[in-house]
């Protein structure tokens, strides 16, 4: 009966009811959306950045280096000499060093020239086929395989540059030899191949003659979207020769011929002490720069965080004003219906019932607002997620539940409940006799 009456009162002023629910819902939706977005972004960044302790690449913006070589979104800062990078690989504090050579893409997915250790960084398992072994063999991430229906045996043609529509390398098709199992990391969206393939494609293509002349690494063609491919200088096939110890296997074969380049080196420390030493060493005594993915992604989140925080405040203020307006509405409604409440008392209703009636009204607004808000917030995140997935970038899961949301919902309920409690207590304390005796 209490609920039915509460609904009847709400239905008797539909416009106000709808406005209150909408105000609450928009606040909740905005906060839920922001929570979803930031928590997933943070998680995502952390997961992609975690396996790599340090990135060594060409000088330039450290954030750009991280974005290009770890998150695979921005363009690289330039290239570094293979020989120079090897010095880092051999350092006793380095547990592993994975080369990354960027330059080409396959339908928007980056083709990463690397070695077998790359798979280990992200704990990626080959779901079908086998890991790459030879030049021009590729292993594709699960997302790439799903979107383009790739299976072992398929031939794909890379296009020059990291953009979706670079000129093709038609005469140099890659052969898909393996498909990776999903990892929930950036590797799902990459095409992996031995670093020699990247060198081979560009040498064969003859599109980088300038790079045949050794020049100061890290100073060339920075930020040049279409010209950022690493290249090797002289055309060099596999050449026999002594292999320096500690050198990544994929680089060995091609290392003899001249000046070879890679985009960056992903370093894992052998000891935590390395964090204090290696970056300084690289930055001061080489022409390369070292950047920490953890530090740079925290910096990135900080920069994004300022905007997010502003929006969060905005949404919080919106919700507070919604709560306030519900409070005002309930209080004034109480004034309007004090005769109704007194009447219920004359029929035998206990004060507690009047309080719960008033509370039921407020809580109905609250619950509808929160439910609608969550639906809107998650719906918006889902829609954005679909759109993002289409453009091949970050997946945003709208149907997930961000950890902060539980707190959000609890806080909104606690605040809203406290707000509704005031008129409820007023209803509880209202004296029917004084209403009946005095007119």
């Amino acid at each position, binding site marked *: *009966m209490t609920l*039915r*009456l509460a609904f*009847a*009162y709400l*239905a*008797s002023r539909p416009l106000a009811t709808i406005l209150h629910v909408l105000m609450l819902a928009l606040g909740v939706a905005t906060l839920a959306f922001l929570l979803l977005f930031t928590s997933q972004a943070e998680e995502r960044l952390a997961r992609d950045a975690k396996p790599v302790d340090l990135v060594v690449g060409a000088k330039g913006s450290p954030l750009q280096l991280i974005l290009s070589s770890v998150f695979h979104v921005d363009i690289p800062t330039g290239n570094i000499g293979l020989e120079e990078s090897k010095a880092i690989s051999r350092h006793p504090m380095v547990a592993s060093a994975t080369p990354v050579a960027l330059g080409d893409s396959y339908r928007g997915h980056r083709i990463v020239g690397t070695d077998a250790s790359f798979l280990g960084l992200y704990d990626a398992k080959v779901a079908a086929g086998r890991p790459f072994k030879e030049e021009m063999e590729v292993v594709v991430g699960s997302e790439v395989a799903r979107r383009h229906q790739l299976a072992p045996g398929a031939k794909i043609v890379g296009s020059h540059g990291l953009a979706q529509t670079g000129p093709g390398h038609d005469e140099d098709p890659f052969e898909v030899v393996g498909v990776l199992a999903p990892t929930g990391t950036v590797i799902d969206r990459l095409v992996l191949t031995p670093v020699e393939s990247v060198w081979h494609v560009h040498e064969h293509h003859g599109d980088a003659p300038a790079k045949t002349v050794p020049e100061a690494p890290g100073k060339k063609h920075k930020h040049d979207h279409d010209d950022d491919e690493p290249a090797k200088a002289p055309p060099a096939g596999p050449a026999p020769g002594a292999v320096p110890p500690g050198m990544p296997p994929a680089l060995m074969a091609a290392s003899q011929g001249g000046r070879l380049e890679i985009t960056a080196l992903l370093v894992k420390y052998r000891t935590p002490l390395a964090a204090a030493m290696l970056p300084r060493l690289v930055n001061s005594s080489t022409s390369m720069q070292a950047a920490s993915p953890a530090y740079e992604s925290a910096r990135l989140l900080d920069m994004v965080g300022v905007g997010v925080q502003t929006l969060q405040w905005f949404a919080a203020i919106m919700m507070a004003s919604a709560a306030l307006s519900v409070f005002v509405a309930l209080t004034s409604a109480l004034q309007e219906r004090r*005769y*109704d409440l*007194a*009447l*219920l*008392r*004359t*029929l*035998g*209703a*206990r*004060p507690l019932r009047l309080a719960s009636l008033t509370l039921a009204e407020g809580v109905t607004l609250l619950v509808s607002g929160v439910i609608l808000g969550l639906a809107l917030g998650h719906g918006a995140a889902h829609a954005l997620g679909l759109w993002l997935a289409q453009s091949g970038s970050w997946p945003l899961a709208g149907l997930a539940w961000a950890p902060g949301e539980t707190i959000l919902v609890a806080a909104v309920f606690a605040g809203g409940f406290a707000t509704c409690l005031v008129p409820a207590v007023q209803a509880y304390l209202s004296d*029917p*006799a004084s*209403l*009946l*005796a005095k*007119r």
Partner: protein
Amino acid sequence: MWRHESPGEGPAGGIDGKTNGAGRRQDAVTHSPDLPEAVRDQAPMLEIRGLRHQYEGRTVLSVPSWDVLRGEASLVLGPSGSGKSTLLNAIAGLATPTEGTIRVAGEAMTGIAPAARDALRASRIGLVLQTLHLIGVVTVRENLRIAQRLAGLPPDDARIDEVLANLGIANLAGAKARQLSVGEAQRVAIARAVVNRPPLILADEPTSALDDANCEKALALLLDQAQATGATLVVATHDNRIRERFAKRLEL
């Protein structure tokens, strides 16, 4: 200023106010445990002793002794401000008098916990009021159902239809209460007061908002319904139009 026109016989002294009303169930057939049934049945429906009510030190009502027998219809008369509403509120247990005792159907309404007063009111008393009519946002039927629910009774649509038919407003059952005319609303208020067959009906100015024709009809209906259910009726008014319809009167 009061007249004690019909001598009521109160129950024997000494048992007054000993009932622990708070623990009693709100059930129309619950009997006071401390009164033998024979004594309780003979007790007046309403029994007032030494009643005085003050607002901020000002005495607005004083009724030394007044009884209303079962089935009687009685009138409380007095000018505005003489304390008629205050008296009815005290009888209904909506206000606690400063002094004195009130018994309804042999059960104490004074000196008991508020919850017991609410329960006693819900099960024993039907109220008709001048301005405090209906809950406007729900239908007429819903208004009567609320009265049934609050009295602790199961919903009984047959009874609702019967009462509405008796009052000639069967067609209004589905109407929203706020859309009714004053006369219709007053009939619904009467219907609501009698729907649970309470033994005592209190009516505060039930006719003063009505024109002559409606006044006449509403009063007739109220008396009819009280008689039909065997209820005792106490009407408070300053409306002289209806004064002659009651043999028993209390002048304040």
